[in-house]
C-alpha cells in the first residue's frame, strides 16, 4: 500500500465535465502529478471546493472530496483541518467563489494561517453561471450582466492575500506544467495557508484573457519565474532582469548583461518586494512570490489542547460544578 503512486492513481472514474479546451484540464493533470510527486496518500488527502466550474475539481481526484456551497470552502476546510490536522487539505476555488461571495472566509483563513493549500482558479469570469464579469474582471469587460462594459475596479488576488496576512502566495499558469509542478509542491510543503493563484483560460467566456503572457512561444519575455535566492532574470538567455528603482518606488526591467549587479535577488520573505512583484505587468511574476513561515492555526489551536483533544477527564468530573448540595 505504501508503494509510490503515480498521477494515474489519483484519477477517478468520473467523467470530466468541463468544456473542451478549458484550462482546468491542464490544472487537473498538474495536480494529480504533483500529488504523486510529493508522495501523497489518497486516504489522507481531502479536496474541498465551493461552487463554480473550478469547484468540480474534487470529483476528479481519487481522494476524499467535498463539493460544498458557493464561497464557503475555506470555512468548511478549516473545520476539517481542525478536526484532523494530519490530513492534507486542499481547497479549490474560483475568482467568483473565492473573491466575491467567499472573500470573507478566504481572508480569515489566510490571517489565521490554517493549514490549507488553496488553489484559486482565476479566469476573470463567472464560468458556471454563463459568463458574467467577476471581481477580477478588468474594467470594461462586456458580459451578459455588463453589456456596456463593467465599471468595477478589479481586486488583485495577490494584494488581497498579502493584505489579509497571507504567509504564502504563489502564481502559476494552467498550461505551464513545469511552473505548476514547482508551485504545487511548494504549496504542499508549506505549513499554513498556501494560496496559489492559477491563471486559467476559460475558453468559452473569456478566451485568452491572459494571452499576453501565457503564450508559450513568447514565454521567455513575458514570464518571470521566481526562485528564492536567485536573481530575477528572464528573457531569451536570461538577458533581462528586474531592479528596484528607488525614485519611482517600483520595479523595472533592466538589461541584465549590462548591469547584472542591479538585478534583485528574490527573497521570498520580503513582503515589500513581493507587493511590487504582484504589480509587475510585463513580465508577469510567477512562482512563489511570498513565503513567511509562521505557526499554523491548527498548531496554535492544539497548543491549548495538549492531549490533542483526547478526553482526559470525564463529564462526571465537571457536572457537579463549583458547588453542590445533597437532598435526602
Amino acid at each position: 500500500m505504501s508503494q509510490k503512486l503515480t498521477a494515474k492513481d489519483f484519477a477517478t472514474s468520473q467523467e470530466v465535465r468541463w468544456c473542451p479546451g478549458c484550462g482546468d484540464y491542464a490544472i487537473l493533470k498538474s495536480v494529480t502529478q504533483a500529488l504523486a510527486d510529493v508522495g501523497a496518500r489518497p486516504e489522507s488527502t481531502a479536496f474541498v471546493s465551493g461552487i463554480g466550474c473550478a469547484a468540480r475539481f474534487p470529483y476528479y481526484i481519487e481522494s476524499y472530496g467535498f463539493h460544498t456551497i458557493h464561497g464557503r470552502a475555506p470555512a468548511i476546510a478549516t473545520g476539517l483541518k481542525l478536526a484532523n490536522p494530519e490530513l492534507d487539505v486542499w481547497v479549490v476555488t474560483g475568482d467568483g467563489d473565492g473573491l466575491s461571495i467567499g472573500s470573507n472566509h478566504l481572508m480569515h483563513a489566510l490571517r489565521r494561517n490554517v493549514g490549507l493549500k488553496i488553489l484559486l482558479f482565476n479566469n476573470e469570469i463567472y464560468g458556471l453561471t454563463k459568463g458574467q464579469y467577476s471581481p477580477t474582471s478588468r474594467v470594461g469587460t462586456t458580459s451578459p450582466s455588463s453589456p456596456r462594459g463593467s465599471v468595477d475596479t478589479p481586486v488583485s488576488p495577490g494584494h488581497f492575500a498579502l493584505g489579509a496576512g497571507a504567509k504564502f502566495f504563489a502564481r502559476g499558469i494552467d498550461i505551464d506544467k513545469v511552473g505548476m509542478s514547482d508551485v504545487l509542491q511548494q504549496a504542499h510543503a508549506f505549513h499554513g495557508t498556501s494560496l496559489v493563484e492559477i491563471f486559467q483560460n476559460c475558453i468559452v467566456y473569456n478566451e485568452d484573457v491572459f494571452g499576453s503572457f501565457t503564450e508559450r512561444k513568447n514565454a521567455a519575455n513575458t514570464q518571470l519565474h521566481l526562485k528564492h535566492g536567485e536573481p530575477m532574470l528572464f528573457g531569451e538567455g536570461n538577458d533581462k532582469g528586474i531592479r528596484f528603482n528607488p525614485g519611482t518606488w517600483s520595479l523595472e526591467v533592466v538589461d541584465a548583461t549590462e548591469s547584472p549587479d542591479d538585478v534583485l535577488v528574490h527573497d521570498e520573505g520580503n513582503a515589500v518586494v513581493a507587493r511590487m512583484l504582484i504589480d509587475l505587468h510585463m513580465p508577469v511574476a510567477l512562482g512563489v512570490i511570498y513565503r513567511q513561515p509562521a505557526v499554523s492555526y491548527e498548531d496554535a489551536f492544539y497548543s491549548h489542547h495538549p492531549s490533542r483533544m483526547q478526553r482526559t477527564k470525564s463529564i462526571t468530573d465537571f457536572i457537579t460544578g463549583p458547588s453542590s448540595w445533597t437532598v435526602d
Partner: protein
Amino acid sequence: MNKNKDVDSIVVRIAGDSGDGIQLMGSQFAVSTALSGSDFATFPDYPAEIRAPVGTTFGVSAYQINLGGGPITTAGDAPDVLVAFNPAALKVSLPMLRKGALVIINNDSFTRRNLTKAGYLDDPRDDDRLVDFQVVAADISRLNLEAVKEFGLSKSEGGRCKNFWALGVLMWMFDRDLAPIEDWVRQRMAAHPTLRDANITALHAGHAYGETAELAAALPQIELPAAQLEPGEYRSITGAEALALGIAAAGELADRQVMFCSYPITPASPLLHRLTRLGELGVGTFQAEDEIAAICAAIGASYGGMIGVTSSSGPGIALKTEAMGLAVNAELPLVIVNWQRGGPSTGLPTKTEQSDLYQAVYGRNADTPIPVVSASTSGECFDMAIEAVRIALRHMTPVILLADGYLSNAAEPWRIPDMSSFAPIETNAVRTSDDDPQRTAFTRDADSYGRPWISPGQPELMHRIGGLEKDVASGHISYDPANHQEMTELRAAKVESVAGFLPPQQLECGPDKGSLVVVGWGSTYGPIYQAVRSTGTSFIHLRYLSPLPGNLGELLSGFDKILVPEMNAGQLCTLLRDKLGVHPISYSKVSGQPFLISELIGKIESLKDEPS
C-alpha cells in the same frame, strides 16, 4: 410584605443600573439560596446596552428570583421584595409588585437629577404612589461608603461595593450563612486584596444593618420551608451551563470529540464561553468570523469525524440556513442550537421569545426537512443536547435544538444525573458488502436511513460528497428525475423515522381526557406548569417538534379544546394544524417577557367557562 414564617415561597427582585453589579448580586443570592435547600428559579433581565447611561429607565438591570418549598418553576409573577438602587429601578419595577410588597430603596439615589432621568416629575417617596407597599428607605450608598472607608478606595471604587452591602441585608432577611459568599469573593478577587476585603466588609455591614437597624421591625426575617425535591445531589444551573455540559456528555457517550464553532451573539454567547472551559472533555471551540463560517466549520468538523455543533440566535440562524441544506444533502451529522430572542431583525436582543419555530421547521429553501427538538427548563438543556446529538448521529442529519434567552440565563436547582443512566450514543457501522466506497458511504440503515460516518483519513473508503442531488444508491451526482423524487421522499422519511425512536408523548399532569388540554413547548414550561397545577388542567409539553411524537394526535383527540400558550404569534398552532389537522386555540404573548402564571390561569379559566 406581610409574609414571614407562614409562606411557601417568595419572589425577590433586585434592580439598579447596569453598572451596579445587579447580576452578580443576584447570582450570589441564588447560590446561597441553593445551598440553603430551597427550590428556586431566576430571571435575569438586562438591557441591550453594555452600560446604558446611569439613571435611565432603559438602563435598568434586574434580577428576579423565586425561592421556597416548591416545586418552583418560574421566577414568579409578582415580586414580594424589591431592592431598588435608584429611581429608575423603582419606576420600572413598581407595576410588577404584589400589593403589600416590601420595597427597599436606596435613599441616596433619589436626587433631583436621578428623578428627572427616571422620568419622575415628583419624588414618588413623597406621595401616595408607594402607599400599597411597605417601604424601607435606607441610605445604602452612604452606609456602604462609611463601611468601606477604612480601605482608602476612591469614591467610585468604594461605591461599587454597595451591591455586597445590599446582599448582606438580604442574607440577614433569609437568615443565611455568609461563609460561602465570602469564599467566593476571596477566590474571585484574590488579585485585588483591597477590593476583596472591602466587599467582604460591605457584606457584613449590610448584614449587621439588618440585624441592628432601627428598622428591624419593618424588615422581617423570613424562614422558608425546605424544598420538596427528589433525593439526590443538586447544583444550581443555567441553561447555558446545562447545554454545554450536555454537549460534552454527548461526546463522551458517543466516544467522539466535539468541535463547537460559533460567532458571538446575544443570548447565545454564554454557551460558547462555557464550552471553552471543557477542553479536557474533548471539546474544542472555534470562534468563527461569522455565522456562516461557524456552521460551515462545524460541517467540516463533522465531515472530519468530530461532532460538529454550532449555535446562535435568530438573525445568525437565518444566515446559516443555506449551509443547513448542504448538511442535509451531504447527510452529515450536525447540531444547531438556537437561543431564541425577540425579533424581527435585531429586535430585542436581550429579551426572550420563542418565535423561531417557523424558521426551524419550515425555514429553508426546497424540501429540506430537519429534526427539531427543544428544551423546557435550564436543567433539561442537558438532556436535550444529548438527544440532539443522538438523533444527528443515528440518522446522519443536522438537528435543530431550540432554547431561548430565558433559559440561557435563568438558574434553577438541578439534580445531577447519574451518567450511567444514559445509553451510549451509537454511530452507523460501515457495511463493507459493496466494494465501491461511494456506494458504501450511502448504504443507509433500514430503520433510521442513517448512512455510515466515513471521514477522510480512513483507508480504502475514499468517496465524494456534496450539495448536488445524488443517486439514491450509488451516491454519484444524478440529475435523473425519478431519482430526485425518490431522494426527496427519502429525506422526508428519514426525518419522520426519528419519531419511531422516541418515547411516546406523556401528559405532564391532569387526566388524559377532558374538555381542555394545554399544550406547550420550550421555556413556557415553568409558568404553564404552575397554572395547570393550580387549575387542575391537563398538560402536554412537547420536547420533540419535528417530527411530532407519533401518539400526539391520539392524545389530543381526548380533549375538546387545545390551548397553546406561546411567546410568539402562534407558531406551534400552525404546526399542529399542519401535521395533525387539529384546531388549537392560540394564546400568544410577544412582549419579550415570560408568561405570568396569573395570565395563564386567567386564560385557562375563561376557556373552562366558555361552552365549547
